[in-house]
C-alpha cells in the first residue's frame, strides 16, 4: 500500500494551483532557498555598482573572511540546533590563536604540536560546556558567558596585551596560500560546511541532534542519548572556534589578543539569517552557509560601495532585522507550531 492510496478528500493535495504559485510556495516554505536567492541578488546588485567588488582579488578577500565568521557560524549553528547558544566562540577563537602562538613561540613547540594541543584544549572546553548544561542545568547563555569572559581575560593575561610575533611560517602557509586561485582558508570553510552538512543530514547522530532541539522531552522518551548529543554540539563548536583561531594568526602573521571580539554575535547573526531557529531543531546547513556568505557579501559590499563606516553597522543591523521579520512572518503564514 502506498501513501497515495490512503488519501482522504480533505487531506488530498490542493488542486488547480498554478505551477508558479506552487513553486513560490515551495520557495517560501524553504528558508534556505530565500537566503541563497538573497546572496545572488546582493552579489549582482553590488557588483553592478562597484566594479572592484567582483574582481578576483576581492573574491579572495571574501573567501578568507569566510574562514573566520563562517566557520564559527557552523559550530554556533550546531549548538543552536540543540536549543542552546554558545557565546564563547569569538573569545575562544581569539584565545586559541594566542595559545597556539604561545606554545610555538614561548614554549618552543613545533607548530603541528601547538595546533593539536590547542584544539585538544578547545575540545575540553566544549566538554565542560556540555557538562555544565546537561548535568548541572546551568543555562547555556551563562555557561558560555563565563567562558567568554575567562577566555578574553586569558588572552590578555598571556600576552600582557602585546601581540606575539615570530610564529612558525607553517601558519602563514595555511592561511595565505592558494590552491589554484582559491585561498586555503576558503577551502577550510567549504570543507567544514561539507562535513557539517554530511554529519547533520546523513548520519543518525545529526538527525538525533535535530530531534533533541526540536523537542527534548520527546527525544529523551524515544530513547535518544540527549546528554551526549548536546555535549557533542558544544565540543564541535569549541573545536571549530579553535580552528578559526589558528587560521587567523596565520593570516595576520601575528597573534593579537584583540582578535575575535564580537565575532560570536556575527556567527549567531549568520545562523539566524541562514534560517536557524533560536528555539532549536530547525535550520539546514545550506542555509547556514548561505547566511554566512550573505553577511560577508554585504559587509564587503558596503566597503566597495564606500559606505560610511558608521552607517555600515546600521545596515547590517537592518539586514538582521529583515531576516528575523521574514522568518517570523513565514512561521505565522505556514502555521509552524512552537512549544
Amino acid at each position, binding site marked *: *500500500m*502506498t*501513501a497515495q492510496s*490512503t*488519501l*482522504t478528500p480533505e*487531506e*488530498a*493535495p490542493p488542486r488547480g494551483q498554478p505551477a508558479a504559485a506552487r513553486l513560490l510556495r515551495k520557495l517560501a516554505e524553504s528558508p534556505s532557498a530565500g537566503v541563497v536567492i538573497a546572496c545572488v541578488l546582493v552579489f549582482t546588485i553590488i557588483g553592478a555598482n562597484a566594479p572592484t567588488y567582483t574582481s578576483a582579488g576581492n573574491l579572495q578577500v571574501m573567501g578568507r573572511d569566510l574562514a573566520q565568521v563562517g566557520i564559527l557560524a557552523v559550530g554556533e549553528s550546531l549548538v543552536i540546533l540543540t536549543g542552546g547558544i554558545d557565546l564563547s566562540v569569538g573569545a575562544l577563537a581569539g584565545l586559541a590563536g594566542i595559545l597556539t602562538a604561545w606554545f610555538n613561540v614561548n614554549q618552543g613547540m613545533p607548530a603541528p604540536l601547538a595546533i593539536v594541543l590547542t584544539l585538544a584544549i578547545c575540545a575540553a572546553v566544549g566538554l565542560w560546556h556540555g557538562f555544565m548544561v546537561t548535568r548541572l542545568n546551568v543555562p547555556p547563555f551563562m555557561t558560555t558567558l563565563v567562558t567568554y569572559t575567562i577566555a578574553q581575560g586569558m588572552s590578555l593575561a598571556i600576552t600582557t596585551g602585546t601581540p606575539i610575533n615570530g610564529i612558525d611560517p607553517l601558519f602563514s602557509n595555511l592561511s595565505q596560500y592558494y590552491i589554484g586561485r582559491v585561498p586555503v582558508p576558503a577551502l577550510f570553510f567549504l570543507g567544514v560546511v561539507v562535513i557539517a552538512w554530511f554529519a547533520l*543530514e*546523513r*548520519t*543518525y*547522530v*545529526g*538527525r*538525533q541532534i*535535530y*530531534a533533541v532541539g*526540536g*523537542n527534548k*522531552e*520527546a*527525544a*529523551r*522518551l*524515544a*530513547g*535518544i*542519548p540527549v546528554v551526549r548529543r548536546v555535549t557533542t554540539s558544544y565540543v564541535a563548536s569549541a573545536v571549530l572556534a579553535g580552528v578559526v583561531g589558528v587560521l587567523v594568526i596565520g593570516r595576520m602573521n601575528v597573534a593579537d589578543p584583540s582578535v575575535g571580539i564580537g565575532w560570536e554575535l556575527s556567527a549567531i547573526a549568520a545562523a539566524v539569517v541562514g534560517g536557524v531557529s533560536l528555539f532549536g*531543531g*530547525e535550520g539546514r546547513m545550506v542555509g547556514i552557509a548561505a547566511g554566512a556568505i550573505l553577511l560577508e557579501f554585504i559587509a564587503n559590499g558596503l566597503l566597495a560601495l564606500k559606505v560610511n563606516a558608521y552607517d555600515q553597522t546600521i545596515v547590517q543591523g537592518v539586514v538582521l532585522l529583515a531576516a528575523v521579520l521574514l522568518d517570523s512572518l513565514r512561521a505565522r503564514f505556514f*502555521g*509552524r*507550531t*512552537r*512549544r
Partner: protein
Amino acid sequence: MTAPEGTPGRAVTARLRGVHKSYGPVRVLDLPELDLYAGQVVGVVGENGAGKSTLMGTLSGAVRRDGGEIQIDDKHLVPGSTEAAAALGVAMVSQEFPLVGQLSVAENLLLGRRPRSSRRRFLVDRAALRREAAEMLAEIGLAPSAIPVGRQVRTLPVPTRQMIEIAKAWGRRPRLLILDEPTSSLGPVEGAEVLRLARELAARGGTVLFIGHRLDEVREVSDRVLVLRNGRLVADLEPEQATEERLIREMVGGEVAHSRPKEEPTDTEVLLSLRGLTADGLGPVDLDLRAGEIVGVAGLMGSGRSRLIHTVAGAQPATGGTMTIAGSPYTPHNPGDGAAAGIAMIPEDRKEQSLVLFAPIRANVTLSILRRISTRGLLGPRRERAEAERITSSVNVRMRSVEQPIGALSGGNQQRAIFGRAFATEPRLLLLDEPTRGVDVGAKAEIYELIDRAAERGMAVLVASSELEELLWICHRIAVLNHGRLATVIDRAQATKERIMTAAAGTAPLVPMAEDTSESVAEVVSEDVSEDGVAP
C-alpha cells in the same frame, strides 16, 4: 454532617440557566438550570471528563461558556473573564497553584492589591504587607510561626503552598468559593482545616463549591451533592441520600460493563515482572505481564498511573523493588535503556512528549530507529524515506506525503504515526499512557485495533487510562492504583466500573502523598484535554 439547609426560595448565590460549553463536536457541559444557595457547601463529584473542570471554569471565568446566563448575587457574569468573576466575589482554589514562586508568601497573598491599611500611594509598605499577610494566614488557622511570611514561596513544600492559595482566596472575602480537590495534596490536619473553612464560609452566608474525588470527604462536608456525568447534572442529592454506592452508581451511569470476547493468553512467557516496585509517588507495585496480554492501569488523578508507565520505561527512576524482563533483571537509568530492553512507550501528551511538530512525518516516525536503519552511522535519505513510508502505511496514517510537517495531521493520525514509530522498534513490551486522549471516536476504534494487533503479535501491553470504558473494552486484566499503591487487579470477567471506582476512590485510608505534584498537575491539565474529546 450538617442538616441540609437548601430549600428553594432562599437566597441564591449563583444562578445558572442554560449554560453550555462544547469543544468541537463534543458538548462537555450542559446545565439547563442550577441554583447554588447561600449558606451551603455544595459537593460536586463525577468521573474524569464528566464536566467538573468546565463547570468550575465557567463560574471562575477561566472558561468562556458558549451560551446561557450566569448570575452571581443577581448580577450578570460576563463570560470568560476571571477579573469579572473576581469582582463579583468568585474565588477559586485550583490544584495548579498559580503562585509566583520567586515572591514571598506575603507578596503572593496580596498579589494584585495593596495592603488595606497602607497609606502610602506608590511605595511598598512592607510592614503593612507583612502584617496583613499574617492576618490572612491567621484567619485560616495558621500561626505566624507555621509559615514565615517573608519566605520565598518556591522554597515551601506543596501542602503549605496549597494552604497559601486557600488563604489568598479566603482573604478576598468571596461570596462563592470554588475548591478544586483542595485536600488531595494536604495531610489530615490541614485537610480538616480546609473542611472547617468551607463550613465557616457557609455559616457566614457564602457558598462553597467543593469538587472532590474522595467521596467520604465530599459527603462529610456538603449540604448537597451534585453528580455530573457527560456534562450533565444527573443527580442532586441530600447528604443522607448520597451514600458511596449511590454516588458511584450515578457517576458511572450504571451501564453494564462491555468487554469484547478476546482470547486471553495463559501459557505464554511472563515478559514483565514487577516486585515491590517503588518510585517517587508510586508503589509498592507487584505485577506480572504475559506476552500477548493487555493489562490496564486504572486510578484517580494523582494515583500514579503515569508514574508506573514512566518508571517501567526508565523515564523516572525507581527507588526500590525489582523489575524483570523475560527473566532478566532490568534496571533502567534512562529511556534508552528501556528501548534497549525491548520497551516502547507512548506517552500521554503527544505535543509535549512525543512529537517534533514542525518536523516532517518522516523524521518523527523514524526517530526511535535512526540507529538501526543507518549503516556504520550513515543514514541514507532513500532508505529513511522508504522506512517512513512503510511505517506510516502499516498503521494507516492518512497524509499527502511523509514530508508534511506532522503538526498538520489530525490528532488520530498523529497518534497512529506514534504507534508506527513504537512498532518499528519491534518491542516486546508496549507501554501506553492515555493512548486515545484527544482523538475522535473513529480514530479511537482504529487505535484499539492497533493495540489488539500488538497483543496478537506477542507484545505485552500495559495501558494506563482515565477512561474506564476504554480499559473495560480492551484489557484482559485491570490493575487499580490508589495513592500510588496497587489496590487490586481485576480480571476482565469480574471487571465493572463500580468495582474499579470502589477500589480506586473508595474508602481507602488517607496516605499522605509524596510531595511531588508534577503528575497531578499534569493530569489536571490533561483532564481538560480529555474533556475536550478532540484535538485542540
